[in-house]
């Protein structure tokens, strides 16, 4: 077990290292940042001084080593635009993104699980069929367009919910959160629902598949034969055995939800890391882009590791030796 864990951590570290290389080289090939970041009114000497200050005069491998060294010390370079530590900048924006992503996943569970249970219990019922058809639409809906339609209906037309920003926030553990104030919650509803839409379909389908798989098994028939109420069989015996794979998948989905928040954040002007990265790509603010990617890669790799570990702990039948 310890050996497996160490090997697994080693693999994860290798993936992270590989990604730093890919990201770094990829981003350094875009245009010449010196032309964009240094004003045109400078003379040649001032220009060279500015290039040296930004470290852009070093050979690429030197810049990469300096970057790796900085990464290990929790510093991924200074933002060209904000004149602030890029890593710090990301960390400042990350709570807003996490808040949005977690809210979206919770919404997906709350809406998707009951629908999936129903569709699994009564697959032939017209409502179940309608729900399954709706899930195809859910998979197909372009998220950014749905966001606009949500704004159109709920903000412009009905005027019920605000369409942009985080609203009022309250400090908790030294970080500002929106879900702690009513105004903030109202601001959270539309973006969270928008981000959740795809996941609702996913959760629903997974739950349905799980139920279909669990229902014919002996312990369910036994529970029924024992005279347990159908509700108890459903909520305790069926649901619990469906939830394990579901939670695993959702754990992995958190990473992709954070990534897809880029789109949602940019539409709802949600001041999270996704909006920052989009702005940074457009202004060629490389340190921020690199820092964001590194943070997301780290989150991803850690989530994968955690899920693998949980799987191993929960189900000894799962053999992970062959899996990468």
């Amino acid at each position, binding site marked *: 077990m310890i050996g497996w864990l160490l090997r697994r951590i080693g693999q994860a570290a290798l*993936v992270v290292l*590989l*990604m730093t290389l890919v*990201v770094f080289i*990829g*981003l350094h*090939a*875009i245009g010449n940042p010196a032309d964009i970041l240094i004003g045109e009114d400078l003379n040649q000497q001032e220009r060279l001084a500015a290039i040296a200050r930004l470290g852009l005069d070093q050979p690429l491998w030197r810049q990469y080593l300096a970057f790796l060294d900085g990464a290990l010390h929790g510093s991924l370079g200074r933002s060209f635009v904000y004149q602030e530590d890029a890593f710090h900048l990301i960390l400042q924006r990350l709570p807003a993104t996490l808040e949005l992503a977690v809210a979206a996943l919770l919404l997906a569970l709350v809406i998707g699980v009951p629908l999936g249970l129903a569709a699994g219990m009564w*697959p032939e019922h017209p409502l179940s069929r309608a729900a399954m*058809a709706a899930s*195809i*639409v859910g*998979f*197909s*809906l*372009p*998220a*950014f*367009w749905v966001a*606009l*339609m949500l*704004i*159109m209906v709920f903000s*412009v*037309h009905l005027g019920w919910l605000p*369409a942009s920003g985080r609203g009022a926030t309250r400090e908790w553990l030294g970080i500002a959160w929106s879900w702690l104030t009513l105004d903030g919650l109202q601001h959270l509803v539309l973006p969270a629902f928008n981000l959740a839409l795809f996941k609702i379909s996913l959760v629903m389908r997974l739950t349905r598949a799980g139920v279909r798989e669990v229902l014919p098994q002996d312990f369910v028939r036994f529970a029924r034969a024992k005279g347990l109420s159908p509700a108890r069989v459903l909520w305790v015996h069926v649901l619990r055995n469906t939830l394990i794979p579901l939670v695993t998948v959702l754990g992995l989905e958190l*990473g*992709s939800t954070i*990534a*897809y928040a*880029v*789109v949602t954040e*940019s*539409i709802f002007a949600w001041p999270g890391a996704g909006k920052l*990265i*989009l702005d940074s*790509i*457009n202004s060629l603010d490389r340190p921020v*882009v690199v820092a964001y*990617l590194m943070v*997301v*890669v780290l989150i*991803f790799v850690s989530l*994968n590791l955690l899920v693998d570990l949980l799987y191993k702990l929960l189900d000894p039948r799962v053999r992970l030796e062959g899996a*990468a």
Partner: protein
Amino acid sequence: MNHRQRPEDTAQALRWLQDFARSRLAVAGLLVLLGVLLLAITAPWVTPQNPYDLMQLDVLDARLPPGSPQGGGLYTYWLGTDGQGRDLYSAIVYGLRISLLVGLGSALIAACTGTLLGLVAAQAGGPIDALLMRLVDLLLSFPTILMALMILAYVGKGVGNVVLTLVLLEWAYYARTARGQALVESQRGYVDAARGLGLGRWRILIGHILPNCLPPLLVIAALQVARAITLEATLSFLGLGVPITEPSLGLLIANGYQYLLSNEYWISLFPGLALLITIVAINLVGDQLREVLNPRAQR
């Protein structure tokens, strides 16, 4: 390829067709899809104006609601006009062209390269196989949108670059499936028989194994086309996709965004509906294809 048309093949194809037709929803999807394709192909003949020809646009006609008559009274803007005075219906049909071209084009290129690489990996084994599959793992373990943003930031905008980005992201799906399927198929008796006949490795791979790997790849291709179209629209919406002069559906929606708050809903609504209908149709067809071609997934 020595693949003669045998009676069994025809019977199999008929059986697939029957299985497919069992879902009325899928048949409807297929019909809609064919309609959309037809519309996109015949665009210049079924639209009143060429939305990319600035001479045909009239700024005075900008942002007219659906059903307004055109300034010269030549035709009616059934779906309204956008901020540049484009007839939205024409713009949507032309936009569909770009969206479908990007979606189908990238899927085709990705399918060919991915399948080839997957087959090579299965055949070669050893370090080549390991390297290719680790690359596939790495690509598939990160969210598409993230990788797409990075690649586009790297190569720049434009239809060609969007296709390139989509191909770079999609080939991995085909490669993984093709490799897995080829490994399964190479255990089958007919491959042994072909070897016994003294056929070369590559001949067996392309002529015998590949045709038997096609059904699952076809399913992936169908679903990937839908994904590609959505992704292209998203990237264009974010301003990283196709150029402004030739708006795809995503860019049309993005252009309508600014007018949404003043209740001029149609500029974003209708292109989005067109996008949605296309993608739903493709997904319905793809879903049913999976049911038909993959007997294990029988409900």
